[in-house]
């Protein structure tokens, strides 16, 4: 058996890469496939927090790569999602602790026993990026509708193509339909025009993400979370299902809710 390795990247920091990786991994695992989440952000470990697994780390990625520990021993099973495992990053080391070749071998090994390997890439375009993408079959580029994030995404897309990770998918994170509506935010079509890549999903700006991160429970487990539902749709699309994207884009301000309640449709 050989699974698919997907790297989640963005160039710019703070656009929601780690949250996206956690929720995509959890979303995939909840619908059946086995998933290994790999925190490739060595020295800045965070994926464990988003998943609520920070107290269960014994071994990390660097221990595995340096040969001190078997990968199966380092993997942490998620408490609630049976098919989900995490390989945490080392916290006391830095990006130079591993090489692209080692990461490639590690990813290949994980693909033997998991349907999906989701790699959370560090921000930036240096060695950490090169490590994370080394063994990836596909890439997901996360951006927000902000100029600096789009510019960095453009750069990353160019670098991915140069490194032979072709046809990256795009996730537009933290979109605010109300701002898009009053032309104070670029819309998804604007971003696709610039970046010219395939759209994988659109995630609304949603405070439930902060709440679920506080609790260490991925938003996909919360049925009421709009961002969580968007990530479930994204997971479904990765599995090859045809899920329409428009549904998540409706404004959710008080006016829209009131209008919906009254049964009025807005033009």
């Amino acid at each position, binding site marked *: 058996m050989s699974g698919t390795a997907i790297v989640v990247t963005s160039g710019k920091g703070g656009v929601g890469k780690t949250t996206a990786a956690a929720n995509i991994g959890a979303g995939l695992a909840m619908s059946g496939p086995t998933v290994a989440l790999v925190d490739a952000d060595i020295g800045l470990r965070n994926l464990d927090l988003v998943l609520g697994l920070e107290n269960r780390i014994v071994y990390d990625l660097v221990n595995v790569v340096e040969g001190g520990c078997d990968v199966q021993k380092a993997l942490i099973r998620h408490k609630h999602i049976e098919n989900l495992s995490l390989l945490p990053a080392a916290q006391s080391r830095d990006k130079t602790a591993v090489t692209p070749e080692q990461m490639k071998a590690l990813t290949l090994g994980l693909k033997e026993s998991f349907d999906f390997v989701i790699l959370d890439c560090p921000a930036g375009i240096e060695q950490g990026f090169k490590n994370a993408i080394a063994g990836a079959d596909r890439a997901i580029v996360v951006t927000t509708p902000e*100029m600096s994030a789009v*510019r960095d995404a453009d750069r990353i897309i160019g670098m991915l193509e140069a490194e032979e990770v072709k046809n990256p998918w795009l996730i537009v994170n933290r979109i605010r339909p109300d701002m898009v509506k009053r*032309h104070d*935010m*670029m819309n998804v079509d*604007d971003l696709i025009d*610039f970046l010219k890549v395939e759209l994988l999903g659109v995630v609304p700006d949603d405070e439930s993400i902060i709440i679920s991160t506080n609790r260490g429970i991925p938003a996909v487990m919360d049925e009421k979370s709009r961002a969580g539902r968007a990530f479930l749709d994204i997971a479904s699309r990765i599995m090859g299902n045809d899920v329409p994207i428009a549904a998540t884009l409706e404004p959710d301000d008080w006016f829209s809710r009131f209008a919906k309640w009254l049964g009025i449709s807005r033009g």
Partner: protein
Amino acid sequence: MMDFLARLFGRVETETSRECAKNRLRLVLVQDRATLSPRVMEQLKSELIEVISKYLDIDEEDMRVELDTSDSSVALVASIPVKEVKRESVGAV
């Protein structure tokens, strides 16, 4: 409804911040993309030499090929000194 409100508050007359971001981003991306890796640049150069050498005898040493970026456009600027026009190229129709 929202369009009406927007007009009411005078948003339509000025450039929206979305348009502003798009215009600025367009220029920035043109410039960001106007670089080729040294490897690709060398390849482009050697293929140019190959094609041009079919018709002209050129001075490869003094040849210069660059991407030139001005405000909103990118041009490939090549300066290729010609030593001699090949005889078979002169008479050809």
